């Protein structure tokens, strides 16, 4: 069965803290994605990765960075958390190109105070 896991379901951080969100998939997928989900807006792509050590900016990369050192793990980093980064963060993965379905993790709800 397909599985995407995220390290935390809920996080509370203070402004200026460095925050790490971890995502792990067990499907040997090449592509991985980080989105944020906010009320009244559709999912917005922050960063994605085609393969190990590869990354591409999505639509809203400002204030974020990513790391993909191993195929199964894709980390989202908030270098200096701000209150406008309070959101639900969703990780997804999919096979390269031909397989279109993205499999999502359960999400991490981040509150920045």
């Amino acid at each position: 069965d397909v599985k995407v896991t995220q390290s935390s379901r809920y996080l509370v951080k203070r402004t200026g803290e460095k925050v790490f969100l971890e995502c792990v998939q067990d499907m040997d997928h090449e592509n991985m994605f980080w989105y944020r989900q906010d009320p009244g807006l559709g999912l917005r792509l922050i960063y994605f990765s085609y393969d190990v050590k590869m990354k591409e900016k999505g639509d809203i990369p400002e204030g974020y960075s990513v790391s993909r050192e191993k195929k199964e793990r894709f980390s989202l980093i908030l270098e200096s958390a701000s209150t406008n980064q309070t959101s639900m963060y969703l990780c997804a993965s999919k096979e390269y190109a031909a397989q279109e379905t993205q499999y999502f993790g359960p999400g991490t709800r981040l509150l920045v105070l």
Partner: protein
Amino acid sequence: GESVGLHLPTLSVQEGDNSIINCAYSNSASDYFIWYKQESGKGPQFIIDIRSNMDKRQGQRVTVLLNKTVKHLSLQIAATQPGDSAVYFCAERITSGTYKYIFGTGTRLKVLA
């Protein structure tokens, strides 16, 4: 997640009735469309997809209809069950060198017993 639903349109349906959820997409060049289901506190779950060279696709209890003329997508759920209660949103894919996904904000489906 819970707060995603704050600004969503809601469709209330009697258990056993059919549900129709609509989505207007934005780009006439979109070549692939996906419907997701998101239950409270969980990540989005793939339901069904359709390519732009089709106008109808059926799954188990679900049917997706695509009208490219008016850029409209619909999800039909037959014999709606309490477990169908969730937020449903569509996504379109634009292929222009690379893939870009645009996600809708969603509709909350409430199944009345």
